[in-house]
């Protein structure tokens, strides 16, 4: 009994309630004609697609820069990497690797500038970050048209210049991770082993980083910047590093997303990507300056699980195609809930 109570306290009521709700959806599913195996498979795929972008929240939370509402900036670095990989005609798994390689310098550059800005606005990072995200998306809307891309699969057919709004990754890095060591149980359950492994690798690297001297310093800066300064830490440097890491993870995250989703979405694509990731980590139990890898895993699974299951179950129950509407209601509802959950720290 005591153990149970302790478990509930450490795991947190919100997660237990959401978990039970998700479980009940899985139980109802067969009765309304939704296949549990397909749904489960979908949930796992979506978990893999979004996991790294949620992970991109962790470094900035640890260094006290708050939730990374500027995720679109990292995503843009990823988009640049992805399109460059295609432009230079890398195909298959190599293209995925090259996309990461190409996006890295952009992520470092953007992250550096972004952190310079955030270091000037300590205390109101999240508001500024939101607008960094928004304005960078708007700026790139122009750049996607102007950048001298030439590859025929990516540019507008009639004009020959300017990138299309959506670009297929087929033939490039579509499903390179999803299909790696993939296995099926029955006809409808598919497990994307490669994708989950890649997420696990990223999570492991993040976990390992937080156990190094620098990672420890990062956590301390987030916990009490004055303490860190009095312990000889250069706060601005640590924050810069965290922002660069977050931005780079955002870039890798969107590439993960694209390899599973099948399309590179440019222009307004990155605009709304930050909020689901922010919500997922908050639902996972993170606060504005504390987050663990477990928060990422639990949060992403619950958020994506609800997002997959609610529309399909509800849809089958009311026999009308409203899945998109329900999906929007549920995802924004979860975001709203999650943002009310953010807890402050003791000072």
């Amino acid at each position, binding site marked *: 009994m005591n153990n149970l109570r302790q478990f509930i306290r450490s795991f947190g009521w919100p997660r237990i309630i959401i978990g039970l709700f998700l479980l009940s959806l899985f139980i109802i599913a067969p009765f309304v004609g939704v296949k549990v195996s397909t749904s489960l498979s979908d949930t796992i795929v979506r978990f893999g697609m979004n996991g790294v972008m949620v992970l991109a929240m962790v470094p900035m939370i640890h260094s006290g820069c708050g939730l990374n509402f500027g995720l679109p900036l990292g995503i843009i670095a990823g988009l640049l990497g992805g399109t460059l990989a295609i432009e230079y005609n890398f195909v298959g798994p190599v293209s995925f690797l090259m996309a990461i390689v190409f996006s890295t310098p952009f992520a470092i550059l953007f992250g550096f500038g972004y952190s310079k800005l955030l270091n000037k606005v300590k205390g109101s990072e999240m508001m500024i970050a939101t607008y960094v995200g928004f304005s960078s998306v708007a700026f790139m809307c122009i750049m996607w048209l102007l950048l001298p891309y030439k590859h025929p699969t990516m540019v507008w057919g009639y004009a020959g210049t300017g990138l299309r709004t959506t670009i297929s990754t087929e033939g490039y890095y579509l499903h390179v991770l999803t299909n790696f060591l993939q296995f099926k149980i029955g006809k409808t359950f598919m497990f994307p082993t490669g994708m989950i492994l890649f997420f696990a690798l990223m999570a492991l690297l993040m976990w390992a980083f937080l156990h*190094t001297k620098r990672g420890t310093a990062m956590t301390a800066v987030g916990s009490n910047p004055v*303490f860190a300064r*009095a*312990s000889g830490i250069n706060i601005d440097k640590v924050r810069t590093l965290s922002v660069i890491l977050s931005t780079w993870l955002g870039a890798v995250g969107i590439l993960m997303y694209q390899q599973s989703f099948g399309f590179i979405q440019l222009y307004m694509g990155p605009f709304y990507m930050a909020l689901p990731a922010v919500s997922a980590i908050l639902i996972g139990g993170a606060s504005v300056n504390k987050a663990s890898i477990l928060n990422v895993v639990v949060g992403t699974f619950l958020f994506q699980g609800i997002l997959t299951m609610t529309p399909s179950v509800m849809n089958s129950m009311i026999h009308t195609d409203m899945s998109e509407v329900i999906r929007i209601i549920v995802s924004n509802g979860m975001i709203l809930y999650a943002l009310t959950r953010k807890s402050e720290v003791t000072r």
Partner: protein
Amino acid sequence: MAYQGPPVLELRNICKEYFGNQVLTDVSLSLHKGEILGLVGENGAGKSTLMNILFGMDVIQRTGGYSGEMLIEGKLVKYQSSFDAIADGIGMVHQEFSLLPDFSATENILLNREPHKRSFASEVFGERLDLLDRKSMVEKARIAISKLGVSIDSAMIVGSMPVGHKQFTEIARELSKDSIRILVLDEPTAVLTEQEASILLEAIKNLAAEGIAIIFISHRLQEVIDVCDTVVVMRDGKVVRTESSKDLTIAQIARWMVGREVTQHADRRQFDYDNTPTVLSIRNLWVDMPGETVRDVSLDIHKGEILGIGGLAGQGKLGVPNGAMGLFPAGGTIIFEGKRLPLNQPRAFLDAGMAFVSEDRRGVGLLLDESLDWNISFAAMQVNNKYLKRYLNGLLMWRDEKEIQKVALEYINALEIKCTSYKQKAKELSGGNQQKICLAKAFALSPRLLFVSEPTRGIDIGAKSLVLQALRDYNEKSGTTIVMISSELEELRAICDRIAIVADGRITGILPSDSPSEDFGLLMVAGQPMSMEEHA
């Protein structure tokens, strides 16, 4: 002076404790119509608590009330809130201004007590829609200000006034209350220039002549002697002396304030200054720390000694270590072990082999949301690369949890830190144990020189002596030089070899710690105008 009738205010046997900490014991005093009573004492002597009780502040209620009796004009009262006190004609001028900066002096003076006039809307909807009677407001404010004998433009916005005028505005607000009988002034001259102060003192005398009883709290003893009829000296929550101000000297008051005739500390040691080298020399240090400005401090600290730095609050003693560490902008020269220390860089200070235990435990000293082992090991890990496992030629430095736990347990045992385990969060510990964590953090750095700032602030007597003992032991065992800053002279005298006193941002003197307390008291108030015979 003989007063007629019952006293306006009488306090009988007031006792108050905060969480088992006795802060007031059997305080009795009486105040008559037209009397000016000077209340003096060191920081923490209980003056503010006493005034809070008088003014019915809710902090008193929240911490369990007080015992004893308070009589206003012979009538027993027990205030539930400050509103009751105000209704009974008690006015208080706080040390910190409580004024609305964007309002004019008039508006501030009469806030919520403005004269009204009826208007069409108020005829219909009731008096909450009355208009302010601007004309009589200005008149009332003018009268209140003129009682003070100063000229302040009552239409001026408070935010753009010089400090002195703010202080006058605040006093004028209290005077504009018709029923005012008792006026408490908490260090009203601290922010004033000499000229303004003398105007204020004159005004205070005039007010007393009009029959208002005044309690005047100040650290400037000459003022107290000049203006007050009676002087009450408090120390450690007790009234130690109530004297007529006639024939009092600053030296006498200083001695009463600082108190207890030298209790010989059994373990006093003779420090050999001639044969120990200087380890740290500070020359012309200035530090821009708000509220604790250091103007010009020069100091030589010998290897292995314990040097105390004392002085009254706000005089700059805290600025010395904070500036040396680089937490606040500083200038001057600091030479540690023969090498010049770059200023304004906390890292350089730590790398040189010094450490600092801040007076601001919760803000600077601790990671409140992290476990004890982190708190203890963090600084040493970052500065000295302790408790780390190295891989790839030191390229990868991994936290060594085992070592961290080991050192945490070591200090928890050595300093008798009360906690459930080393994984407990720092915010869950009591003040005394938090302080020990801060010490452990500094000890883990194994510094050759340690600054400790207000190590016993806010902790109870039992924990105090443990903390002081820990410092003394550390000094003796490892030979670490310690510079301890404290506002409690007694505690400095208990463990220090020498004590430097800071007043007005400068060192006014350094004395061996067994010098008579009177001498320290004089140094603390040095820099204040004194008449010639007292120097003799």
